[in-house]
């Protein structure tokens, strides 16, 4: 069994992590050797990953509940994606360096789903999980939307104002090519976010300039603030759109199924370097994993009250240890 590669980014030598990752570390110490950097992935342990995802969901709910503010819906729907990306797919370095040379990069364009980003970054070893307690508080590094401004490790660009992330990623991808760095640049975008025209500028640029070291994933949850994307402004057939714009498109039918996400990202990776930027259309359920939050835009940007939190947490029992 290839064990080296799972949960690879958590360094047990990082003292700050020990407390927060007690359970996590215990669990993988049993099975794994923790390397700091690796390049391939094989046979991840789905149960381990599922535990990770469940804990991430708890983190999302607790962050948002504590400050009665933030965006649980989109965050929950993308818990699997972030977990797979940081735990299984990306070749990245938790010893954070802004330039990110010789590692894969990730840019979150739909910055409002910061709770899932913060949880996964913390639990991957970028900063102490306890810091999730400071989400959206004054003087915190965990701003409402991710930012470089407060020096939080793992963040390479501010986002929040929608539609800008793909352009940034393309710049980073072009810099990688200049640097002869073969690593990949990943991005995530909301589906509603694709209504912003800047995305289409970037989409056109990427194809026209063969930026084939980029994998952009669209969180197709069918929801945005004022309702479903269908009622607000229908996106139509996104596959056709991206293909008409010259991208290589693949779909993940269920972006809340870990195996599908892993396979989808693997497949996407195998399609890089072939002259076309790669797009993943990933169907997710907004609010996934918390029954009353699912399939509705109502929880896009609303925090649960105490009771709702309890319900949500009970549906997602503690696995790796709460912060």
């Amino acid at each position: 069994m290839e064990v080296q590669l799972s949960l690879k980014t958590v360094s047990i030598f990082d003292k700050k992590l020990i407390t927060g990752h007690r359970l996590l570390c215990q669990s993988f110490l049993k099975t794994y050797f923790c390397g700091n950097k690796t390049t391939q992935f094989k046979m991840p342990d789905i149960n381990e990953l599922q535990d990770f995802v469940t804990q991430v969901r708890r983190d999302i709910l607790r962050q948002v509940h504590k400050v009665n503010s933030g965006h649980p819906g989109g965050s929950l729907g993308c818990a699997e994606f972030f977990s797979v990306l940081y735990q299984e797919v990306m070749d990245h370095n938790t010893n954070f360096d802004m330039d990110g040379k010789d590692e894969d990069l990730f840019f979150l364009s739909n910055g409002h789903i910061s709770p899932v980003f913060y949880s996964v970054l913390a639990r991957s070893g970028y900063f102490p999980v306890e810091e999730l307690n400071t989400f959206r508080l004054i003087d915190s590094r965990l701003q409402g939307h991710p930012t470089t401004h407060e020096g939080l490790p793992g963040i390479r660009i501010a986002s929040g104002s929608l539609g800008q992330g793909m352009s940034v990623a393309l710049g980073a991808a072009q810099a990688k090519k200049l640097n002869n760095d073969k690593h990949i640049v990943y991005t995530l975008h909301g589906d509603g976010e694709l209504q912003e025209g800047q995305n289409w500028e970037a989409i056109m640029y990427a194809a026209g300039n063969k930026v084939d070291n980029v994998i952009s994933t669209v969180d197709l949850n069918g929801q945005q603030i004022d309702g479903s994307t269908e009622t607000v402004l229908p996106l139509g057939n996104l596959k056709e759109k991206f293909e008409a714009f010259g991208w290589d498109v693949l779909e993940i039918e269920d972006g809340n199924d870990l195996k599908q996400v892993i396979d989808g990202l693997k497949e996407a990776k195998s399609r890089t370097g072939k002259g076309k930027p790669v797009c993943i259309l990933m169907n997710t359920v907004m609010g996934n994993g918390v029954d009353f939050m699912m399939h509705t835009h109502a929880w896009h940007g609303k925090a649960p009250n105490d009771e709702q939190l309890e319900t949500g947490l009970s549906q997602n029992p503690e696995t790796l240890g709460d912060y």
Partner: protein
Amino acid sequence: MKEYKNTGSKDTRSGFGAGLTELGKTNENVVALCADLTGSLKMDEFKENHPERFFQVGIAEANMIGMAAGMTIGGKIPFTGTFANFSTGRVYDQIRQSVAYSGKNVKICASHAGVTLGEDGATHQILEDIGLMKMLPGMTVINTCDFNQTKAATLAIAEHDGPVYLRFGRPKVANFTPEDQKFEIGKAVKLYEGRDVTIIATGHLVWEAIQAAVELNEKGISAEVIDIHTIKPLDEEAIITSAKKTGAVVTAEEHNFLGGLGESVARTLAENHPTPQEFVATQDTFGESGTPAQLMDKYGLNSAAIIKATEKVLKRK
């Protein structure tokens, strides 16, 4: 000293919503456009009452501004609604060409201005929008201070022929201006007569200025307080007259001290009657996450800051 009573805290954006609802009933040319923030902008009622006159454009602010400009051709009076950052910085060139330079009768209505937007943080907290909009020839720029004034302003701008930027905010704040007020674009409102210092405030800072004036009065300092809801066209006469009388000015705004109301006042006085002035405003920093109250406090946007600035400027007289 006259007492200004808070008749119950309300958010200014609800004043906009109430005004828009009323306009929907009284002016059939009024149409509304929103970029996926209908609830935040309090446009739901208009939308429900007049679905055919409500245009959901999705997350595409540039298109929204262009469409609004186009709707004026055909006699409509479009009110666009989104957060202040996405109402201005995101679409500056669209406003510039398709609205301001084209002289279109579009009302750009912007909520969640300034740091009181709160927890979403700096990417959403624009502190430059007054400056952005005031530089556009022909643009009227209004920043209202409470629910009643925002509602009155919303009604008033529908009557005004030409582009308008109406700026308001997210949190509940004191509602203290008269319910039945007539809103006169470009006319400063004197809240207190005073001798020692002129406090010129706009938006959420007006209530803070009132509190400051009351406290200053107790300390024996007589402050003239001006609610300058219209930053452009600026009521220069009111400013000059008051500065001549008091010889010291404090401006207060939820905005960067660069480019906003403070600099407009400084420019007016430099041209007419140079006067010592202190600037209650953010000091060229981005905002951050926090509660509105915490942020007003941290960034020096409250009555305490106004009092400190007053004491400082008085020493400079």
